[in-house]
């Protein structure tokens, strides 16, 4: 199995006002292709910081983080942007563009990657069908339920055939029934299409559904178990 993520003694310190906060204090982690990893931990444990680094949204203070074999510390702004296109990020608050409908939201990440109009449309419709939103393609985020918005966000994250999918508290803002559906979708993507999944959550139940669970507390990994 190919190694997609490799963190070695990863540290991240950021300034909260004038107080330095050590969010990551030496994390070592390997994620292989096809894995379904859950990062579990209370708030303040550094799991979101970890996710931002893996998503190439931020750079580490020290240590190395290889994504797809590339050390992100060595990348410039443009190269980081290019890398982000190969990462499917799904946010806790969905983060859809409110003025764009479901199709246009999915198309947006394709258009950023420079895909042409006709191909974009076709791919977006396929993806929305995959996440079970075939009949909601023209709806704007405000006209969709939380679960439906999350599905659009997943479709958008999948648009550019990412190396892996990053999910930040994917069920944090939806009811438990919908959450189960979302999880079923994520598992299906992992099992049937072999999509690598890295999911951050503080929900023990949810974490159990993953193939592997990593516990984080105070910026370090305390356990790493295969379920």
């Amino acid at each position, binding site marked *: 199995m190919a190694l997609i993520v490799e963190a070695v003694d990863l540290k991240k310190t950021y300034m909260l006002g004038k107080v330095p906060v050590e969010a990551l204090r030496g994390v070592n982690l390997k994620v292989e292709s096809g894995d379904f990893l859950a990062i579990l931990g209370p708030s303040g444990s550094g799991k979101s910081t970890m996710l931002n680094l893996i998503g190439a*949204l931020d750079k580490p203070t020290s240590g190395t983080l290889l994504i797809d074999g590339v050390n992100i510390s060595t990348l410039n702004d443009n190269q980081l942007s290019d890398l982000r296109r190969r990462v499917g990020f799904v946010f806790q608050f969905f983060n859809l563009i409110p003025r764009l409908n479901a199709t246009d939201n999915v198309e947006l990440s394709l258009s950023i990657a420079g895909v042409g109009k006709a191909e974009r449309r076709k791919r977006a419709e396929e993806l929305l069908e995959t996440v079970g939103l075939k009949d909601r393609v023209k709806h704007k985020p405000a006209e969709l339920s939380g679960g439906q918005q999350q599905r659009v966000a997943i479709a958008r994250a999948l648009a550019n055939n990412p190396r892996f999918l990053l999910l930040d508290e994917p069920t944090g803002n939806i009811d438990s029934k919908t959450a189960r559906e979302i999880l079923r979708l994520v598992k299906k993507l992992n099992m049937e299409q072999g999509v690598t999944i890295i999911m951050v959550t503080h929900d023990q139940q949810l974490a159990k559904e993953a193939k592997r669970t990593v516990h984080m507390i105070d910026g370090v990994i305390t356990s790493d178990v295969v379920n």
Partner: protein
Amino acid sequence: MKARDIFSYSFSAIKLRKLRAGLTTLGVVIGIAAIVALLSITQGLQNTITNQLETGLATDTLIVTAGRSVFSQGGAGIGGGFGGGGDSGFTLLINDTDTINGLSRDIEGSVAVLQRAVYFNNSERSFLINVAGVDFAEYEAIYGGNTFVAESGTISTNPANDEVIIGNTLHDPWSNGTLLYNVGDNVDIVWTNATARPPKNETYTGTISAILQEIGGFSFGGPSDTGVYIPIAQAQSFFATDACNQIIVKLANSDQATIDHVTELITNAFDGEVSVISSTAVLNIIGSVFSVIQLFLVGIAAISLLVAGIGIMNIMIVSLIERTREIGILKALGMKSRTVLLIFLGESVIIGLIGAVVGIGLGWGLANLVAVLFSGGGLFAGVGGGQAAGVGTAGLNIVPVLTPTVVLGALGFGIGVSVIFALYPAWRASKLKPVEALRYE
């Protein structure tokens, strides 16, 4: 990201806030409209005045008057000047035409003009008017093909002393068929001799022998619609002088070189005591005066565009703050900083483009409206009324001019100002860090 997609994304952002974008655009519209309206109306006014002057005087004539030239000698640029200059006691004599005629083969002829203000009386009316004594034959030789042409009666080349030729306005001042003077009418010409002691009125009775065709322009030196012409010999004896006010010189051609050369010859012949004005010099002066006025007016209008630019900047900064999270999302999806910059600049280009296009249309409409108000019997029509001797005849007929240069310039300026003022907000947007932008509430 493809340019088309960047542009359509910018457009979708603008569409979301129609009122705000509309008001921002309105600022650009007003600025551009003001510039376009002022430019096209002043250009139209300049054309009107230039055309009227060109009908009034041929470009191949020079006007010689006594008095040193105020500005530099010579025809080009501001040369010639509306002199009169210092009073050295020098007077131009009627027979100085002989001197001038002998100066160069480029001079085809010259005519002395002796002008005095007189009362022009008949049993019903009395007008104060300028009468010009000229050699009818020479005058016709210079202006005959153009403006010194009889509509009725005949211009005699060897006139009797009592012959009088009048401009068309004195014949038909209101252009409505009510005629003031006709061929064959007798008029008393009364001149007050102010040098006699005591001053006394001299009178002689003239007979109108010809009425000129309507000229329809301002006059500068040449015949005019309000002019009255009597034979030079009669003027000389009636006004008891050998001096004249000006000598009009007809050139073989209207080349600048000829004008400059002859101007120099004449100036030297009179030892610098005369000023020589060419019509091209007059047109040049008018042209440069108008350029200054135009620049001034456009400068004022440009200030309003500057204000619009600040409005754009203001609104873009507000928009940037509101859309911080959106920018974070775009960056998280892999959008490059440069593309974020282009999206924001794209919005300002759209605002500038729409503003400029609408502004050009509106400005053009305004210019035409002003032109209609000016020429349609509005402001100037009444001036000529009671006393037919006034300047006003038909009113100024201004046709606004919109040149491609003005259109392109306005477009460029509108878009340029919008983009320049959007640079800072766009740059700030592009520099946002994705993690922080996403956290922004």
